[in-house]
């Protein structure tokens, strides 16, 4: 949080994340007042663990959306790479091999999305809608619809516990999952805000014609964004299987919408050309804190969905009105 505030100061001129940050602070204070269980360290750790997987995916989504594209297949890639990793492990492949192969397959799914969108000239909405089903089907076929359990009985590798540490372990009380999330966030900041590739992503998303005329290879910039997206989805999927010690083919359904929601709440416009990792981070926190607070208040979980939906609309509406007002 402190990090977000100091970054906000640095960017004070543009005020981009200011509004969302205020909303987060407001929700935070509200739940602190309403629920006696909200404001304590255990709960905070709970929240950051809960948002880690969605957070990893949303980082990739920020890049894809900044390129002016969308990816609906992330939930399926998340499920498919988790299933692949689990299947390989119970079939006697080494842990490292399973990890590496499933990460690469996740990246490959994203890469194929990118190639079809750019060289295939198919709208990303359609390509990734198709890939959503293809990857889901892939997960269901290789698992044959069964639940895959990882335990000492099914996996013979002596390093199984080390693998489980990724999902269940803690480093100084912080879940390893969250540590991975923080690392992915740092990588995203470097790629998206500090590297030439990220600069070109914003240029291509903002004005593809001008980018091409400036000698930027718009196709490869987009392919990279989709590949990062696939890779991050696989990372999250694998952490999920390590956390639960089991996974089924339907895992990750609906995740794409939550990731898109986090990015949009964070102030990134769907039309592309802009975006901020920190904004997305705040968006994820808003979703996470809302989910957590609603449960703590004993409100029916059915309300969660409705409230998150309203927050998306309000966030974008306020953003649009403020921007219009400024003009």
């Amino acid at each position: 949080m402190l990090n977000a505030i100091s970054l906000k100061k640095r960017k004070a001129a543009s005020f981009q994340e200011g509004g969302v940050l205020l909303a987060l602070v407001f929700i935070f204070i509200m739940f602190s007042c309403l629920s006696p269980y909200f404001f304590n360290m255990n709960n905070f750790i709970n929240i950051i663990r809960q948002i880690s997987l969605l957070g990893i995916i949303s980082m990739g989504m920020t890049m894809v959306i900044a390129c002016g594209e969308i990816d609906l297949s992330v939930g399926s890639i998340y499920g498919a790479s988790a299933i692949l990793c689990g299947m390989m492990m119970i079939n006697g492949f080494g842990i490292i091999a399973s990890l590496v192969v499933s990460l690469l397959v996740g990246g490959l799914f994203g890469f194929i999305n990118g190639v079809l969108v750019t060289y295939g000239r198919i709208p990303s909405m359609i390509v990734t809608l198709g890939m959503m089903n293809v990857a889901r089907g892939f997960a269901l076929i290789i698992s044959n619809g069964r639940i895959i359990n990882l335990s000492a009985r099914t996996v013979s590798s002596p390093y199984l516990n080390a693998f489980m540490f990724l999902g269940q372990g803690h480093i100084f009380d912080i879940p390893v999952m969250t540590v991975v999330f923080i690392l992915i966030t740092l990588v995203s900041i470097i790629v998206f805000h500090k590297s030439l590739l990220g600069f070109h992503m914003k240029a291509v998303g903002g004005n593809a014609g001008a980018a091409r005329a400036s000698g930027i290879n718009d196709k490869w910039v987009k392919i990279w964004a989709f590949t990062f997206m696939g890779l991050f989805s696989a990372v999250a999927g694998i952490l999920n299987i390590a956390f639960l010690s089991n996974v089924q083919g339907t895992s990750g359904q609906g995740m794409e919408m939550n990731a898109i929601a986090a990015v949009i709440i964070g102030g990134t416009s769907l039309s592309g050309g802009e975006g901020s990792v920190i904004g997305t981070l705040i968006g994820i926190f808003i979703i996470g804190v809302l989910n957590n607070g609603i449960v703590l208040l004993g409100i029916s979980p059915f309300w969660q969905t409705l409230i998150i939906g309203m927050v998306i609309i309000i966030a974008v509406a306020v953003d649009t009105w403020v921007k219009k007002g400024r003009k």
Partner: protein
Amino acid sequence: MKQIIEFRNITKYFPGVVALRSVNFSIEGGSIHALVGENGAGKSTLMNILGGEFVPDSGTVCLNGIPVCIKNPAESLRLGIGIVHQELNLCPNLTITENIYLGREKDKSGKVCWQELDKKSAALLKRLGVDFDPKTKIRNLSLAAQQLIEIARAISYDAEILIMDEPTSALTINESEKLFGIIQSLKEAGKTIIYISHRMEEVFRISDKISILRDGEYLGTYARGEITHDKIIKLIAGKELSSEIVERKKESRTYKEPVLQVKNLCRPGFFNGLDFNLYPQEILGIYGLQGAGRTELLETLFGLAPSWSGEIWLNGKQLKNRNPADAIRNGFAMVPENRLRNGIFSKMSITENMNCCSGIPICRAGGLLNMKKMVRNCSDAADKFSIKIACQNEKIKNLSGGNQQKVVIAKWIAASPDILMIDEPTRGIDVGAKAQIYRILRKLSSEGLSVIMVSSELSEVLSQCDRILVMKGGCFVSELTGNNATKEKIIAAAI
């Protein structure tokens, strides 16, 4: 005959320019009245005032002697004014009938009866002397046919006044002939037609009267027999150079080795067999009317054209620019015609815009951005080109058009090209910034850069270029240098 339209002291300002300066004239009912002038003379602005797109800043429009206030296009239609735009405004996915009656589908009782409307539009088309099935989708019609549908739609509103903005620019000779027949028959039916065109032959052929605009000023109306072709060209061209724009000194130079040689360059549908040379330190002007193929020529040189043939030699070596990245590597730079669409990244900051080009090294090892260098590039350029920047992190869209253009030019210069191609360098820019941009271009060319400048602005080409090529219909029709280059000669060649 009575005056159907009367313009009284119409004045219209746009940011930085006066588009129309107290224009006074009237148009007779039942006549074909042509409106001529250079690009940007104010013809379209005047017609858009009639069409309700713009409201004049002062002055009144009188219709049949009564002052009217045309606030929006619907109002204009209600008053009986129909416009056939240069760029067609039809929905290609809908049928002829659906397009003609779009927004007016209901009959008096509030029902929609397509059979009835189909019959009505068939009758309408018959009046225009064509026989289309009203159920045909617009996308299946030729451009000429689509134009007729626009005319039919205007007539279906019972328009008494029909404005046609360059209707023949996309038509073949046969199609144009047919259109002239229809215009004639509309006149016989008592309609008034305002005809905007660059093509003098057409204007002399069909119009009863000709009005001339230049730089937003009305220069007079002449009956067809009263004025000659040459006189009109003199009037259109007779612009004195603005005092702020310093004319480039025309040295009689001896051209030695060309930097760029273009041989037999063809791009199907746009131009054919173009040959030209570009010499060191030269500003080569390419003048022509819209649609002459100038922009397409630059695009082809810059690797943006999908298919073309011919040879491009740079410093004695033949090369092929397959895409802009190739072109940039080979030392080309292009400032595009449409700044908003292809020139700037409106969501990005000034610094980012200034560095967004593959020819500018802004990378550290590992693909990380060298932010310090980006900021330095930007402040260097701001100094060199006197760009007024309050804050480098400001978004570029908050700058004036002139400063935006300077940023775009500065960016391309930062890529250190040998050849700068610049398309309409001062479109939408006020006079002060224009003079600065000319100064920048002259300085760059004296430092060794070769410049190709495409422009529709005659005074610009005349005052800034060492040599002028006139392009018409995809060919070079004239090459003029030094004192040989006069306004009359250029216009006569281009029209």
